[in-house]
């Protein structure tokens, strides 16, 4: 049997190829182009090889913002994932309150990033913000525009407020998918509440949690708008995360070569971490 060939089919693929080319491939290749060349304007380019890559990888500024980024992402994951699971576990499984809870949970997710940043900026201002005034009223000296620790705490609190809901909704979906028979069998087997969580709920939530962790990792690792609006990366450089730093180099200093090299490195770090995490999580499944 010979296959029928119809070369006209390629025409049907063309729109997708064009779309992907314009929204992903060509911009990415432009970045690759900038990362290996130097330009002084007028579209004149000089070949620089891997110079920018070496410069970025050896720059203490990059190291510092990378470490800040790791610390930020690590902290919010450590808070949001357990908190999200805990909230999902305490949500009702049926009844009229289910929809109320779901809508309340979804609300923060519907607010645009820059609005979240602006909201928290005003909310946390020590002189006029509700939160800032309250904390100072309790006798704690709090000013997120001047104290690095306060700036960090506020940024993390903002992210937890904005994104824990996502983890809650995913975990809740995972929990609801567990058949009743598991809980009934656990009762018959005399399992404790902890054993039910550890042996049934957590393993059954594994897939949705993998997705939740991946999404939260990628999103928080690339976070830009919210801290930019809230703290502008300050005080000093204390909340300058990778993407804020990248924009400063590319658009503030107009160092296109190093900025291009840095975005490629940034891109590969995200890709690598996702791949490592996903492989680790899925390794058991395949056995």
């Amino acid at each position: 049997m010979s296959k029928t060939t119809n070369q006209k089919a390629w025409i049907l693929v063309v729109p997708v190829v064009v779309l992907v080319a314009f929204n992903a491939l060509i911009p990415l290749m432009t970045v690759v182009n900038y990362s290996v060349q130097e330009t002084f304007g007028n579209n004149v380019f000089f070949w620089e090889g891997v110079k920018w890559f070496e410069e970025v990888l050896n720059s203490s500024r990059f190291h510092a913002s990378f470490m800040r980024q790791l610390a930020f992402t690590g902290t919010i994951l450590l808070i949001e994932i357990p908190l999200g699971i805990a909230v999902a576990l305490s949500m009702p499984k049926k009844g009229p309150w289910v929809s109320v809870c779901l809508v309340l949970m979804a609300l923060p997710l519907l607010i645009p990033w820059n609005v979240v940043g602006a909201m928290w900026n005003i909310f946390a201002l020590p002189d006029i913000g509700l939160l800032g005034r309250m904390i100072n009223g309790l006798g704690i000296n709090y000013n997120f525009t001047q104290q690095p620790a306060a700036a960090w705490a506020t940024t993390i609190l903002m992210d937890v407020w904005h994104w824990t809901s996502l983890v809650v909704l995913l975990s809740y979906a995972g929990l609801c998918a567990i058949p009743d028979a598991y809980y009934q069998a656990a009762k018959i087997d005399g399992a404790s509440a902890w054993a039910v969580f550890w042996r049934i709920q957590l393993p059954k939530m594994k897939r949705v949690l993998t997705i939740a962790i991946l999404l939260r990792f990628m999103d928080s690792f690339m976070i830009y708008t919210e801290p930019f609006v809230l703290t502008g990366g300050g005080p000093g450089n204390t909340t300058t995360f990778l993407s804020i730093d990248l924009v400063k180099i590319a658009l503030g200093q107009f160092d296109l070569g190093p900025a291009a090299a840095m975005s490629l490195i940034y891109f590969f770090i995200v890709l690598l971490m996702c791949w490592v995490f996903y492989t680790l999580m899925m390794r058991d499944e395949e056995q």
Partner: protein
Amino acid sequence: MAKITLENIRHSYLPEPKKKEDYALQQIDAEWSDGSAYALLGPSGCGKTTLLNIISGLLTPSEGRVLFDESDVTDTPTTERQIAQVFQFPVVYDTMTVFDNLAFPLRNRGIAEGKVKTRVNEVAKMLDLENSLNKRAAGLTADGKQKISLGRGLVREDVNVIMFDEPLTVIDPHLKWLLRSKLKELHQQLGRTMIYVTHDQTEALTFADHVVVMYEGTVVQVGTPIELFEHPAHTFVGHFIGSPGMNILPCEMSDGVVHFAGNQVRTASTNLPSNGSDNIEVGIRPEFVEFDDEGFPVEIIKVDDLGRHQIVLARHDSNMIKMIVAEDAQIPSENPCISFSPAQTRLYKDSWVID
């Protein structure tokens, strides 16, 4: 081990049941004697699982009491009732090995590890799971997983009753046979009370000493397979058990005799109802309908040859009558007439048998 008594059990899933239809269980009084094998048979939605969950304590009945021997356990939680239950779909703890899965009910009850080990090995041997004890439970096939569920039901020695809720639904047909005979064998070996829920009559009749037939939230008959076949107490039992089921035909009482479509019918019932009673039916199994020149005329609609016997569908007036005749029997081609064997013809009023 204990005798289990259900007293006036009624259950509704609604908070304030009013009508009869609000109740999933209408009125159940039953006694399950220690050490017997019971099958709970009935169509989907008749309340079998509800009844099982009431015995195991996963549900508290709206009304009535559950007794284990003489003690009232109606409000005792599941964990303290010492019962085992196997569900329709396999439940395994994915992150544990097969061994740990089987050991789970024992370890939760603080049984010494040495004892756990011997028990688990015994159960694994009964179910042919010995070779996969160290495997992760998540990697097993559906029937392997269901064996683990069965194993967790069998592993405890002190249980009052083991209940199976349609446990073989997900199992391949040829393994179904094996596992069912295995269960039967285990029952004989262990002498534990077992209740087996199913909607499959073959399963019920092969497994159990006593079959409890349920219909619309009530127990309509409890009996041995033979009793259910020969003496159905309710028309539902008549047509649910047997293949094809009992013929249930409308009839009237006049002049002190039973008439079916104008023909006099003799039945095994002696307490005949008064003339003109409503809702009277005769029930006759297809096995006991025969061709008889003295009988009443029928028209033959269809003959199905099943290889070991033939099923004849005949019509008299507007009534369809099924009959089973021997494989080699001649089916009369002209003016066929049939009659009912009187000893096997039963009279039903409002669906219940009249003796």
